[in-house]
């Protein structure tokens, strides 16, 4: 379930009646009871949290996992030994009226032995750690390069032209990183404002995206599917809402996705609501949001100028928005819950097709999308408050409240649905 702060109760009721009946707290209580019941089924990990770090789905994460499992085991064993020793001492040497013991000050031989043993254990651990550190840092066998730019509070991905993947023009997208399976993908991370951290637990550890620097992170997924992740370097107000998803597609599906991303822009048919939405978009949204190929009524290309309106100089590129499953920095799903679960839980063989189907009107999470268009800062904490713009020369940070009328929102939603 996702963040819901709709101002319209009837909409809420229509879409998530069953969930809203229970408060989050009571729901958690129910869950707690089921969880206690599930202690028996400890082994079944399929229902663990989306960002479980112990379920590697790619070779990099597996490397880490293979390293850390024995270490956890060793640590556990040492812990048990210590507990046992302390417990024994507590039980055995409790004051039962025995005389005051001899005032011995220690046994150096024992001390040294007990110092050397942990040192040896750690030395062994160190050797393996060393190897994995350098293995993870390898970049010379990269197959696909993607530039990742962090910004408060979303991620921008751009794919440099790489003919072997059919990428002849640069592709720019946000929210969801789409990558082929079984491919060594190298992310070149940087940031436009503060430090963020890119983390898809199932695929690799995290790596900070630092402004002014380019850091690399290698991802490789074994199976098609969606892998959840989250920004893990505290980055301000909506740090909690800065999520991301890595979408692994089979190589064929990836080719399809690439082709679709590079397809020419299709303007909505004249007279439709969507066409009116396009003009609303041209009036309002295009100030910051680029839709590649979108033309103004006079035939000129509409070029967004976020650098003139947004402090960090960029806003998400909305070309083919409906091929993504999330919006607003992956804070919200574009898919309604049912459709979303359908995609997320799909078998790996079917996943590609389901993902590439994109978002249609029936599946659109219109509730959150409309709330977002109505007043973005209200549903996502941002510094879009004009009172706080003094330090940014009046430029916005995050999406401001556009003051759109309900009919404009209708039109925009209709238009956005055509972007796929």
């Amino acid at each position, binding site marked *: 379930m996702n963040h819901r702060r709709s101002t319209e109760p009837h909409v809420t009721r229509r879409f998530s009646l069953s969930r809203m009946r229970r408060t989050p707290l009571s729901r*958690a209580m129910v869950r707690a009871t089921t969880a206690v019941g599930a202690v028996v089924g400890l082994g079944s990990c399929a229902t663990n949290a989306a960002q479980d*770090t112990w379920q590697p789905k790619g070779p990099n994460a597996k490397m880490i996992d293979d390293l850390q499992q024995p270490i956890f085991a060793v640590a556990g064993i040492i812990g048990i030994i*210590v507990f046992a020793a302390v417990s024994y001492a507590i039980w055995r040497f409790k004051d039962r009226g025995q005389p005051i013991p001899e005032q*011995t000050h220690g046994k150096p031989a024992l001390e040294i032995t007990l110092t050397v043993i942990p040192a040896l254990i*750690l030395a062994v651990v160190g050797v393996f750690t*060393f190897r*994995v550190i350098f293995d993870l840092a390898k970049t010379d066998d990269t197959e696909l390069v993607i530039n990742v730019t962090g910004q408060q509070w979303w991620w921008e991905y751009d794919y440099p032209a790489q003919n072997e993947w059919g990428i002849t023009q640069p592709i720019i997208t946000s929210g969801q990183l789409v990558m082929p399976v079984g491919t060594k993908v190298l992310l070149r991370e940087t940031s436009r404002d503060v430090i963020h951290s890119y983390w898809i637990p199932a695929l690799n550890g995290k790596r900070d995206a630092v402004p002014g620097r380019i850091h690399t992170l290698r991802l490789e997924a074994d199976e098609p599917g969606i892998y959840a992740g989250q920004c893990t370097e505290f980055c301000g107000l909506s740090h909690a809402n800065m999520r991301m998803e890595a979408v692994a597609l089979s190589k064929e599906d990836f080719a399809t996705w690439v082709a679709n991303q590079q397809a020419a822009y299709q303007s909505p048919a004249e007279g439709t609501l969507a066409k009116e939405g396009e003009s609303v978009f041209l009036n309002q949204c295009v100030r910051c949001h680029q839709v590649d190929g979108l033309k103004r009524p006079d035939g000129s290309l509409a070029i967004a100028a976020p650098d003139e309106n947004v402090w960090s100089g960029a806003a998400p590129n909305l070309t083919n928005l409906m091929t993504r499953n999330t919006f607003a920095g992956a804070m919200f799903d574009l898919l309604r819950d049912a459709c979303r679960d359908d995609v997320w839980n799909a078998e790996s063989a079917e996943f590609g097709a389901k993902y590439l189907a994109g978002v249609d009107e029936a599946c659109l999470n219109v509730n959150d999308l409309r709330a977002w268009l109505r007043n973005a800062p209200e549903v996502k904490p941002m510094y879009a408050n004009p009172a706080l713009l003094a330090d940014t020369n009046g430029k916005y940070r995050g999406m401001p409240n556009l003051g759109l009328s309900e009919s404009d929102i209708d039109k925009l939603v209709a238009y956005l649905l055509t972007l796929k």
Partner: protein
Amino acid sequence: MAIIERPAPGTTLVPALAPSAPAITPARTFGALRRPVATTGWKSWLFTVDHKKLGLMYGATALFFFIIGGLEAVLIRLQLAAPEGKVLNADLYNQMFTMHATTMVFLFVMPMAAGFANYFLPLQIGARDVAFPRINAFGFWCLLAGGIVVNLAWFFGGAADGGWFMYAPNSGPVFSPSHGVDFWALGLQIAGIASLTGAINLIVTVLNMRAPGMTLMKMPIFTWMITVVQFLLLFAVPVITVALFLLTFQRSFDAKFFDVAAGADPLLWQHLFWIFGHPEVYILVLPSFGIISEVLPVFSRKPLFGYPFVVFSGAAIGFVGWGVWAHHMFASGLGPVSVAVFSLATMAIAVPTGVKIINWTLTMWGGKLVFTTAMKFAVGLIILFTIGGLSGVTHSVAPSDTQQTDTYYIVAHFHYVLFGGAIFGIFSGFYYWWPKMFGKMLNERLGSWNFWLMVIGMNLTFGPMHILGLQGQPRRMYQWTEARAGEGFFNLGFWNLIASIGSIILTLGVLFFLINIVVTARSKVRAPLDPWNARSLEWMTSNPPKEHNFDSIPHVNHLDEFFHRKYEEDPTTHTMREVATAEQVLAELEKNADAHIHMPSPSYWPIVLAAGMPVVALGVIYSIPVAIVGGLIMLYAIYGWALEPATAPAIDHDESSSNGHNGHAVGASHG
């Protein structure tokens, strides 16, 4: 009071009642204000330079901030008990976790350790005061001023919201437009003065003012650990001060130290911060190690096992602690070589830490264990710190750390280290030393409640966080969403709820401690002179100690001198035989009491000087003229201070000087 005139030797003395001080009238003054003379009432606290009073004030201040920080923690847990928490908004939540950490680290654990150190370090080494008593007072007031400045931001548009690590550039004025970060940076700079002056003061005290016969290797282990901490502070605080200074300049004067567009590298801040920040961890935890290294032998009736190993492992932690800061930055993109080096260094530091745990366990081994509350907390520390230490080892492995860092696993780890380690040690110290400080024993029954509720609450709060972290819940999120909570046993919802419930139990535990304080304070029962059958010098004086600590400075022959004055080993059976009671030992000391004792005099200047600093801070934030006013206050205080001799001349003590003793200082400290 500066000179204590004692009756001639041979007169019997009631231990608890020091002779009441004669009225003092300063005959002349060099400064602008005459010396304060009050020996009772609030003035005697405000202007005191007595290390014991200052220690108590440190403690009281720290406890106050502990409650504040604890309430902040409870609010955080309430917010996170359920998904989409609505208790706090994002902005307030960010302030809350920033201030929780800041308060707990800088305003609770550090001052509390400083409090214990202030009170007991001179007692443990047989000194009458610290080396620089007025600087000591100044340090305390700086800490208080700093704490107030940091928290003042709550009332001036919001507290700091960048996390206690305050990473650049997120701490810049653009990303944190309120003045919270300004207050934070300036407040911590002021509080840092306390640490720095305290460090110098205690180091000099330890090096110069030990009782005759007390070699370094006969020094109580608590004093040893505090000494190591002071060296850490001495080198670490300047680093953070520089960083904070840069931050203040960045924010208040448009400097470009962390401005990426101007060519700066934001990692500079991280390096500066963690070069301070990692030794800081040991600064927080080593005093508690010292405390339980005192408590365990006392209640095991056995000396500390491998005293030299504990000392040197403490020192080793102090040294190696400087070479591991970058393990906080494994995900920052340092490059594999740096990561590998720091990974190994971090593993290396586990060895001396392990040595300590082994030695504590072996101290208990073969002993005669008495489970008072203090002992329970000490044993609790061994167990809980071991858990924290082992989880620490798991992320010394850098690749593993890249999965765990900035998740709740880390939160769990360092709370086991800092709550299970530092705070349990502090509580152990409370129960152990309360009779010494106040002459009354804390209630053991309530203490038991306190301990068990805290152990359970602590494990319920922070234990689940291991799971949360490994399930991928990042830190510093004002909300978590059900969409990624998962189902099954390891779902985030359940464990978040457990952690929140645990925090309530933990709060209850602390509440029992506060109740215990009140109950004890109202009780009329006075503590015996040596309630625990203790071993070190601080117990070789009255409860609470007299103003001048010792009637005569003891000569030290053993580690655990006090114990060895009470017990002797039967050479044939190798069993210990009591040869003297504590009262007898004390009476022996009093027989040879020093006649004239010169104690440092109270002074206005430390508090006036410290009071100028928040004014400067406010001025830097709001208006430079105000800063100038603050500067003038400080200048005035510096003058007053410089012009005032540390110890009032004998002529200031009219009563005593009239009876013919014109002040020959005996074994006293001046500073």
